[in-house]
């Protein structure tokens, strides 16, 4: 796991870098915004930590520039306590998280872990639940057998797998999977749940989906 740390306060930069390194991350450090941006464009990171108040380019400017370049790496902003407007602006500009200064190093580490977890979950090309695997490389659902899903089937299966303990309401599913299609309704969700049920059975999985038309849905393992 590779982290870019941009912080102009030298002591803080060195201290955070030392702790992250000790935790097993590989860290590149920058002391101003321009330097940070140069690193980020050249190299690929798993997490970027940006102080907001930095010389040459502020953290917000760096953030805006990397998002403009479609670099989607998770970004955490370090903000001073008073900078509420900056935090809002930062999140709106595409930051994934922020940490107000002064912060406990324990919290910084926990947030980095949370961000990398989210990142792997989202971009990892395989997710699994019980006896099923879902690959985003080729949209394949597999267990004993494999079938290839359509995009919407894949997205629906993906949020079901990512929320194994939560009953997802039809409304939530519509907002997540069919957000750009206003004509989709509970019948659409129901049809796609029905597709996935047939396909889970067809790949020989013992996993099924609980719920009924218009209701909430969740993956369930069949008791042995």
């Amino acid at each position: 796991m590779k982290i870019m740390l941009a912080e102009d306060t030298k002591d803080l930069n060195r201290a955070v870098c030392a702790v992250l390194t000790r935790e097993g991350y590989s860290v590149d450090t920058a002391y101003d915004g321009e330097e940070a941006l140069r690193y980020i464009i050249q190299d690929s990171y798993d997490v970027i930590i940006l102080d907001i108040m930095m010389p040459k380019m502020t953290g917000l400017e760096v953030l805006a520039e990397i998002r403009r370049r479609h670099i989607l790496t998770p970004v955490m902003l370090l903000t001073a306590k008073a900078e509420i407007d900056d935090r809002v602006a930062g999140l709106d500009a595409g930051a994934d998280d922020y940490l107000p200064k002064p912060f406990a190093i324990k919290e910084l580490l926990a947030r980095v872990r949370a961000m990398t977890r989210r990142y792997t979950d989202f971009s990892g090309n395989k997710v699994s639940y019980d006896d099923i695997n879902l690959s985003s490389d080729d949209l394949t659902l597999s267990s004993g057998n494999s079938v290839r899903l359509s995009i919407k089937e894949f997205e629906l299966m993906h949020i079901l797998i990512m929320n194994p303990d939560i009953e997802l309401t039809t409304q939530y599913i519509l907002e997540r999977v069919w957000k750009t299609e206003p004509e989709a309704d509970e019948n659409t969700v129901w049809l796609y749940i029905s597709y996935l049920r047939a396909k889970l059975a067809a790949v020989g999985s013992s996993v099924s989906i609980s719920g009924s038309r218009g209701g909430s849905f969740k993956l369930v393992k069949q008791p042995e």
Partner: protein
Amino acid sequence: MWQGEHTAFAERSGMMETNSIYGDHLPEMKKVMNDIMSRVGDARKAMSERLGMDPVEHCLCRIKSEESMREKCRRRGLPETTESALTKIYDSIGIRIVCAFIDDVYAMVDYLKKFDDVCVAEEKDYIKRAKKNGYRSYHMILKTASGYYVEIQLRTISMDTWAALEHHLKYKKDIKENQDLIADELKRCADELASTDLSMQIIRNMIMGDLT
């Protein structure tokens, strides 16, 4: 050669080969084949009347040719005798039933197993457990009370189309260059077709009002 329902009933004229690997069993084998073909025909009629939909898209049958039966005996290390052809090899009589929908495949399987004068000698569900290359079909070997084996292959139209294309790959060994790419792509298509077959079934259930 595979033939359709209408021609299967017609007794083919001509001389009986005296040195046939099937001995003098050919007329009886044809009768067994035609019996099962007419069962399929009956099922189609009954289901069409009941559901307004013919479960079978088409149905073919054949008696394995002399030449390929002898070749199969040699390949299996069996003597080229009538006994091998009729009791060691199970596909001397072959029937292929192609359905539009996946549930119809299983409906036909259940229907053909029900008769008292046949028993199921072997059953392989390559739809539930597709072969590595993506091949899907339901294979069933029936043994008649009179002692003949009949191999029945059941599948959907898309599985049938896939199998036809894959057959070409198998017998065109000279396309070495793209062999791996083609095999990968065939596997991908098999998984897409299987998926679409299931979606079509669900949509049909929805139209019929069975989706609860």
